[in-house]
């Protein structure tokens, strides 16, 4: 399988967070054209910009750094990933791949998409939190009707 490029990762995550290139650029403190260049693979971000992109888009700094600077892989490949990102990833994977749980709770693809946006913020460490949030929101919606 072909590995994703830095530009593809930025573009995909930006779209998932419903940000335009201009909005992302404003958050990063760069021009919109610079974001376009990064997404097209025509520029390589500085180290500080890699960190800002990771913070803004909720991405893993180390992975982003290695995508931007693959030549550094041998230097940092042995470093363990931060525990928080691992927990968040595991929680989301455990939730999103549990077909039985999704079916039992009638989680629609639209709901899953919104919960994925919650996952992108990288703070949820338990799959049950997703379900709890979803059910609380559903109850509020029912009360509105």
């Amino acid at each position, binding site marked *: 399988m072909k590995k994703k490029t830095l530009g593809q990762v930025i573009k995909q995550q930006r779209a998932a967070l419903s940000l335009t290139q201009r909005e992302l650029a404003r958050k990063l403190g760069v021009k919109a054209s610079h974001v376009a260049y990064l997404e097209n693979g025509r520029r390589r971000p500085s180290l500080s910009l890699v960190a800002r992109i990771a913070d803004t888009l909720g991405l893993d700094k180390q992975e982003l750094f290695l995508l931007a600077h693959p030549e550094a892989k041998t230097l940092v490949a042995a470093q363990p990933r931060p525990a928080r990102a691992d927990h968040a990833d595991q929680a989301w994977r455990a939730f999103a791949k549990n077909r039985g749980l999704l079916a039992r709770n009638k989680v629609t693809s*639209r*709901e899953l998409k*919104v919960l994925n946006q919650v996952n992108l913020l990288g*703070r949820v460490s338990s799959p049950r939190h997703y379900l*709890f949030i979803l059910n*609380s929101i*559903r109850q*509020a*919606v029912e009360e509105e009707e």
Partner: protein
Amino acid sequence: MAWRNPAKDIERLARRDYVRALRRLFGYRAIREIIAAARRIWPTLNQAQLGVAPKSEFDRVASGIVPRGVHFKSSPWDGPEGLALLGFYAEKGKLHLKHPLIYVNSAHDAGAMSSALCHELGHHMTAEMFKEAPQPVHLFFDAGYAAHLDDRVELAADIIVSLAGYPEPVARKLFSTPWNWGVVARTGRLEPSMLSGVRGHAENRFGLDLTAKFPAGQKLNYLAGMIHYAKLRWGLLAEYDL
């Protein structure tokens, strides 16, 4: 979100310079905007002390504070997994919500519930300021304070909690130090006298007694919250003279 190493994480929080974090994320004008947005709902923010309702009265009092057009829900979710969540704020429009939703976990102590309510209301008050980057749900975990120092949206909500918990007259009494008027303000460790003042204030005003019988993990989380909001308030006084 769970603590990886509670003692170390609290130690890190205690050492961190909050003025630096504030200065990096907000200019003076942005802080004024946050206060102005909050005062549309709480006109006496930073002037009068926010009271804490007992747990039995919490829902009634909270329903009176939460603005019209915002759902308020509280229910208990205990156990380590449930207690990790203090509350959340869901913006309208997501998952068919016609109005925003504030949820507070009522398994917590009344003081923690009040700060959670205040934090989620803070999201509602500042939603307009951060509308360019809407988030479907703002989650408030009890081990997430350090992460808030790198997140404008979360820190703005925490600023409101801090100003409500320590209005200016109280903050001046607790946190005024000679170096507030130095060239560069900074907040390091809370001095022992400050910490005892903060503990007394939390106990008298919020009924939060850390010598009470909470499970160890919960006690650490409440201690972290106490340090976080106190240092944030100290930073606001030191850097912005608020």
